[in-house]
């Protein structure tokens, strides 16, 4: 993980703060934008937001930790979500989840050490008719793509290794 300088963080947070200035009830939207910028709720960015809103940083963490979609750790390049909604559950989602856990070597909510994959479960993607479904980076896979998921994981890993070897 690359450490960011305080200056850099503040420069990147400033336009987000400006966008929401003077409006009520913006904390969640603000945090969503910060997360989009950094990929997760970076600590120094949280402090910058707290400073600007004149709120204790603990208040921000209190709000952010309530919601499932705020992350305090960097996430993988690809986010693999297994839907565990009712329809998916009774049509085999637990089996898919077990296989993905095995293949990626992580549990839901975790990220692989190479920061390539994050595995998550989601309550419902709203595609119950196609159950069981998996999405990668918010795109729901069709049946054909889902069958090739294992191969896709391998090819992403191979590509990552190759690029690592090329770089000095």
């Amino acid at each position, binding site marked *: 993980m690359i450490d960011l300088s305080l200056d850099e963080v503040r420069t990147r947070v400033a336009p987000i703060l400006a966008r929401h200035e003077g409006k*009520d*009830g*913006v*904390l*969640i*939207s603000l*945090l*969503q934008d910060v997360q989009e910028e950094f990929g997760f709720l970076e600590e120094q960015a949280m402090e910058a937001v707290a400073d600007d809103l004149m709120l204790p940083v603990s208040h921000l963490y*209190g*709000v952010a930790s*309530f*919601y*499932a*979609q*705020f992350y305090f750790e960097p996430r993988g390049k690809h986010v693999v979500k297994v839907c*565990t*909604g*009712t*329809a998916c*559950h*009774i*049509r*085999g989602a637990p*089996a*898919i989840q077990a*296989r*993905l856990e095995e*293949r990626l070597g992580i549990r839901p909510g975790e990220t692989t050490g190479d920061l390539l994959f994050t595995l998550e479960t*989601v*309550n*419902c*993607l*709203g*595609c*119950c*008719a*196609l*159950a*069981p*479904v998996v999405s990668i980076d*918010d795109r*729901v*896979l*069709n*049946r054909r793509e*889902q*069958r090739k*998921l*294992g191969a896709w994981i391998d090819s992403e890993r191979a590509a990552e290794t190759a690029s690592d070897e090329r770089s000095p």
Partner: protein
Amino acid sequence: MKRLRNVAALDALRASLEAESRERVEVRVCCGTGCRAAGADEVRQAFVDEIERRGLDATVTTSGCQGLCQRGPLVAVEAKGLFHLGVDPSDVGPIVDLTLDRGQPIDRLLHHTPDGAVVRWRDDLPFYQKQERVILRNCGRIEPTDIRDAIRAGAYAGLAKALDAMSPEDVIAEIAASGLRGRGGAGFPTGRKWEGCRAQPHGPKYVICNGDEGDPGAFMDRSVLEGDPHSVIEGMILAAYAIGDVADGFIYVRAEYPLAVANLTTAIAQAEELGLLGKNILGSGLDFRIAIKKGAGAFVCGESTALMYSIEGSRGMPRQTPPRSVEKGLWARPTVLNNVKTFALVPVILSRGADWFATIGTEGSKGTQVFALTGKIRNTGLVEVPMGITIHELVYEIGGGILDDVPCKAVQIGGPSGGCVPKALFDTPIDFDSLQDVGAMMGSGGLVVMDESDCMVAIARYFLAFTQQESCGKCTPCRVGTYRMLEIMDRIVEGKGEPADLDRLQELGEWIQETALCALGRSAPNPILTTIRHFRDEYEAHVVDKRCPAGVCYSPGRYRIVEAECLLCGLCQDVCEEDAVRESREHYRIDPDLCVGCGKCKAVCPAEAIVLETEELREAREEVTV
């Protein structure tokens, strides 16, 4: 687009849009989330390319969800009255050749009924015939990102009528007369809610649309927001007009629904451009704006008071009521909060009249309701039916019956807050009150069909695990009570339950129902209590006989030695304390009557020759391959 200064200008625009030459052939590709996952984007692009390549006079449009997700991508050629299902990009060439050019269908892409008849058009499909699409009236028939298409189909006609000829009181009276009850689950009369808010002396007031559809297995609000966003916007404007002194409107959308957010953003911008939102709407003097608030992933935010805290930027935890939201809601101001489907119904009630609406449905539940049919059913997807239709009609006539013709066991209605209805009660009419009588509730409208291979205890545990995980933790009955219930359920599905557990579950469940702070907590025990009520024998099998009749839970007697893999080493026999591994001349065998399902034999087997039968069966059935 030019700003519309008054109602007459809107009527004129609609007339000119209707008059626009409709002779051009239009290919409408369903681009709802289901069809997209099945490849609709590629199909749409293939049509665009093919039509351009041949220089044909035809346009390609998209639509929101049409409900029949399982057979997607769906392609309608309206001018020719043809409806193709399961279209692949490779089918596009033949469709352009035969259908667009000569009006001939591609036979293999049409629906074939079991008796061999061919169905050419959507409305003639058995799936649609028993439906009455009022909430979903425009879903799948208009381009959701083009307000002109929506206006042509009648959007904002209800608003025009209200602004032109009705006072705010008239609007509320009309809604009250229609008998509309909120579609969010509880079924509170909408007219009464609006009247209560209007009666509050001090503004500013707020109008909120609840699009935080968190129930697993329900996706109707998403379909409306994605496929017909203007119906919701129009409903909200009408609410603002009726209530009076409204400062702002908010639509709270689940973060998992990016397409709904995108389509709504477009729709709001287009409505503002036309002067249907903003200052002095259609010259009436009404000012109203709508902002979108994206959820951040908390099921409890579907509860109205929690949702308001979330909009304010706080932790989304419910508060005690009263005061009700109509008195003290968002920022402690009077607020009307309705579900997506409720707002979508308002315009059509005004344009077609309360009398018309009141003819649909039952005495206590007027109108229609949308259900998401899922589970072990042939036609999964979204359906809309008049209130009062029986569960049997919904499952067998619209849903096409059970997958693989396995006997049906029960349906689960209303998601984690709802309950299970056994097959014996399938003649129950679906309306707010009848469902409550059998222990279920309308809830979100999720309807999961389960067959004999599903274990009701495991399903109930699944729902409880969901609500327990999503409990916000503010009140003790929900935070601790559901946790304790889940511990008991875990014990039962692991084969470690005892008969007294059933009484404990019931007692605890009833306590939670009476004492939890919010509706979500109070309804959390419903799945357990209804399954104990209707499927007590299955619970008893688990706690007394220590077996799972459906073979889903930790099930003794289902361990099996695969002969082909077995090395005949005998380790399993050595390790078994129950003496359940029997030896014969050629092989070992596990006696199901003696096995207690401890799994020690499986753990010790060097050849992995011992399998849990259920896993194997399930895999074969699901073809789940990763």
